[in-house]
């Protein structure tokens, strides 16, 4: 078999074939556990491996296989060793020709090659306004701040801004605008405008510490920088909840968002026979896109009842956001035309397979979210997309001491803000889904309004057209909020936490802590989140408790659960795992 044959085989894989969006970079090859894999230079390791049908990225010390889960750099599940460097996220690391990738990044010791500790002095950056996060809220905030004449910097963790909602097709592909949907086009236009306005956009840059509103520590474009803005706008978005169930750590079981990123950004399919399950409109969109891309969607399971009596909500939603309702109806239409069954008040309750998902069990839910006995049935699949809603990414705001309210029934910590997004900490604003979930369009308006308020507080005056836009945005925001409220009522469903977990189900995916271990620790009459963490290691892993602590909090939820910031574990620096040598700084003599 020649190398060319292998590349040819790689082309006939899980890549989406389409006319309007086509690859423009050459196929290169890299080594994965001794096997040659083809991919487009610049796409992520995770995308290239998914395209090659390789779902398994690693194995735990206990032998369990793991793959791509969140697809957005949060869960740390996909870590691999790249050219000797352990702990690299396959979903965030681009491939380079000849690269050597080894699965199981956490089980190896660091390479013996010595790296001298350099002096690495801190570089200070002093924009007037710093926006963290390049999604709809952050881009719109940066745009607003720039239009008001402030010096604004935007930090985004990804190679390209857009966040999750306005995520663009990767640079590996050229796009004909006719092939792009409204979401792509609106996002692309906003990104282009932000760049045109001269906003300093820091790509591949992550905030790892918030030591004060004017002491924001960032690994920005490979160097350690300390941002000292006069105003800080946090637009850090949200991440998908994890719902533990047997088999949810199997490769091929991923969040709906991860599947969407594979498809939209990298034009790669998560599998050939896919189950989409969860709660909310994102699942319908992704299922419809999967169908359009030629995937067999075996079913969609929606936890909400979506009863016909909710049609009044649908009408109300349609009044406030006709475009979004049209989109939603078109998803349903595409699914119906393809003959995809949609099961309401149902959920995936288990996944089966050896080293990859092979089957899923579905069940109808009672009003507590438990499976109704006798309603279970199995389907054969090679991938499961599970999207059970979002949790705000709030660790920067929490580090800074912004006051939060804990909504115990949904397990959400939401910052207390005024109508402009201003928090209880002076000079700090939170906007978008990080400030409480409201959807991309509300996020966009909130970002703009916060930026204008922040600019004004710095003595800048909004030009007349910006003032007019503010008025429009305020009105639109109230429409978006009304739409969102209607949508929530439409998709109202029991919050799933441990209803489908069994004693041996892993709750803390990083440290492999099982439900029975956690339940034992939770039995102490003075059990707390922190005490369970100390006893079981749940929450001590690389994802820093983002997936398991909401589950633990739900387990512990009682009448006396604190209704504030202290309901969850305190965030600690670094807010994301950071390579030690990137942080190291020579001490003063």
């Amino acid at each position, binding site marked *: 078999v020649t190398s060319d044959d292998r590349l040819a085989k790689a082309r006939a894989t899980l890549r989406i074939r389409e006319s309007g969006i086509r690859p423009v970079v050459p196929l290169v090859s890299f080594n994965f556990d001794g096997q040659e894999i083809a991919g487009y230079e610049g796409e992520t390791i995770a995308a290239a491996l998914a395209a090659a049908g390789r779902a398994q990225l690693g194995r735990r010390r206990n032998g369990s296989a793991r793959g791509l889960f969140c697809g957005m750099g949060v869960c740390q599940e996909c870590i691999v060793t790249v050219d000797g460097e*352990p702990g690299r996220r396959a979903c965030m690391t681009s491939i380079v020709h000849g690269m050597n990738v080894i699965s199981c990044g*956490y089980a190896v010791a660091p390479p013996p090659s*010595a790296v001298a500790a350099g002096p690495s002095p*801190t570089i200070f950056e002093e924009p007037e306004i710093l926006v963290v996060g390049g999604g709809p809220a952050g881009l719109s905030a940066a745009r607003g701040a720039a239009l008001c004449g402030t010096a604004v910097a935007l930090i985004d963790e990804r190679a390209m801004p857009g966040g999750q909602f306005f995520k663009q097709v990767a640079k590996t592909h050229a796009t004909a605008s006719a092939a792009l949907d409204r979401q792509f086009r609106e996002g692309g236009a906003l990104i282009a405008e932000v760049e045109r306005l001269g906003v300093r956009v820091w790509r591949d840059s992550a905030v790892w510490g918030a030591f004060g509103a004017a002491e924001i520590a960032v690994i920005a474009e490979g160097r350690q920088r300390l941002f000292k803005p006069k105003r800080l706008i946090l637009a850090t978005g949200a991440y998908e909840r994890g719902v533990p169930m047997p088999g949810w750590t199997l490769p091929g079981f991923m969040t709906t968002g991860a599947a969407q990123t594979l498809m939209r950004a990298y034009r790669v399919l998560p599998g050939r026979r896919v189950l989409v399950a969860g709660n909310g409109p994102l699942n319908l969109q992704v299922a419809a896109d999967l169908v359009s891309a030629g995937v067999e969607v075996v079913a969609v399971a929606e936890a909400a009842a979506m009863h016909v009596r909710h049609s009044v909500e649908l009408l109300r939603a349609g009044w406030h956001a006709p475009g979004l309702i049209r989109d939603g109806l078109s998803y349903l239409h595409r699914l119906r035309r393809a003959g995809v069954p949609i099961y309401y008040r149902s959920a995936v309750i288990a996944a089966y397979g050896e080293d990859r998902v092979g089957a899923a069990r579905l069940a109808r839910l009672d009003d507590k979210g438990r499976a109704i006995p006798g309603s279970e049935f199995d389907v054969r699949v090679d991938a499961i997309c599970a999207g059970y809603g979002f949790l705000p990414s709030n660790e920067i705001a929490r580090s800074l001491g912004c006051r939060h309210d804990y909504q115990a029934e949904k397990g959400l910590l939401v910052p207390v803000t005024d109508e402009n997004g201003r928090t209880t900490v002076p000079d700090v604003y939170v906007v978008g889904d990080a400030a409480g979930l409201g959807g991309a369009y509300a996020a966009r308006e909130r970002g703009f309004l916060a930026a204008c308020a922040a600019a004004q507080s710095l003595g800048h005056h909004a030009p007349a057209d910006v003032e007019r836009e503010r008025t429009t945005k305020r009105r639109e925001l109230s429409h978006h909020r009304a739409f969102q409220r209607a949508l929530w009522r439409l998709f109202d469903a029991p919050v799933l936490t441990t209803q489908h977990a069994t004693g041996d189900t892993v709750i803390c995916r990083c440290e492999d802590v099982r439900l029975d271990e956690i339940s034992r620790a939770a039995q102490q009459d*003075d059990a707390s989140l922190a005490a369970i963490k100390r*006893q079981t290691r749940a929450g001590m892993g690389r994802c820093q408790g983002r997936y398991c602590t909401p589950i633990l909090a739900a387990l512990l939820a009682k009448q006396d659960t604190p209704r504030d910031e202290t309901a969850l574990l305190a965030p600690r620096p*670094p807010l994301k795992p950071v390579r030690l040598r990137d942080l190291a*700084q020579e001490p003063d003599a």
Partner: protein
Amino acid sequence: MSASLDTDVLIIGGGLFGCATAYFLAQFGVETLVVDAGDIGAEASAANAGNLHLQLAPSTHAAKDPDWVREFAEMMPIFLGAVDLWQDLARELPRDIELRFPGGIMVAENERQMAILRDKAALEQENGLAVELLDQAALLALAPYVSEQMIGASYCPGEGMANALLALIALRESAQANGARFLSHARVEGLEGQMQWLAKTTRGPIRSRRVVIAAGANSHAVSQMVGVSLPLTCRAIHITATEPCARFIDHLLYHTERRLTLKQSANGNVMIGGGWSATIDPVFGRPAVLHDSLRQSLWVAQHVVPRSGHLHVIRAWAGRNVYTPDGKPILGAVPSWPGLYVAVCNTYGFTLGPFCARFVAEQIAGRPPARDLAAFSIERFRPMAINRDRTDRIE
């Protein structure tokens, strides 16, 4: 929890000192209740790295008078006894506390530091510690992961480590199994009495015959409620953990002049400390990590163990360390305060905790001490620590 919280011995503070004192008291059959303002075992006892230290620490002793260091070094038999006790506990306790004795290595990177190590080793040997000096070849043969910039080291085979979190849970569980009670989120807001004590807590009043103040950084505040002033100072410091990885570091590492303690835990995380300053969060009042301290501490780690630079840092946290004027613990009965006992320590709390606690428990139970630690009585700080008016009144 039963309706009555009244008890023979009330221990204020559910950290290592409190839990270990309860562990021994429960073994001796003494009725004990431990209260803590927050979770049991949450503050410094959970924040510390679980190192078992024997070597002197020239990097922190540099500012001290040579006589101070000489006197401190005379504690060596106490440290050795404390480490032996941990071995016994590891056998007795109902869970694995991940106790290991790979030995400790203090590295030097220049001749001046080697000279410091020579003096240190001489003083340690004089006081009974087995320690040897290594040249660079011997150092790199023993610890090949250490940077070649290090030219030598002192090596103490008796040093080790355990999992501080599991050790605390094991002591608590074992004490509970023997009848001790624990009450969390019961902050002591008032303490009064003699012969019979009354503690007013946020979860109700507690009457007891004896009281042990084992509240770590808060011990001073508690002791002041009864007119005793413990001469303690506090400083917040931080520790950092990397992602777990396969074992490549065996020993407990230190640096002669730079702030560093470094080891790899049983789970595979590299734990980096050394007493770098932290702060107190202005909003929440809890210990919090400082930007410069964090970055500089990591530089020292990479400087000594270059391979650690490849690893990802996943967590840094801070806790409050307690210091006494002479670096020695303050233990046992408070003279003139019948029924009042103290159990606090100058840093090294993890190493010394159970050993000190055993003495306090023996004193309370009226048992002959396995090792007499009466020299560590608060008496040595009189009159500084003990309010004369109160003393006169009682006498």
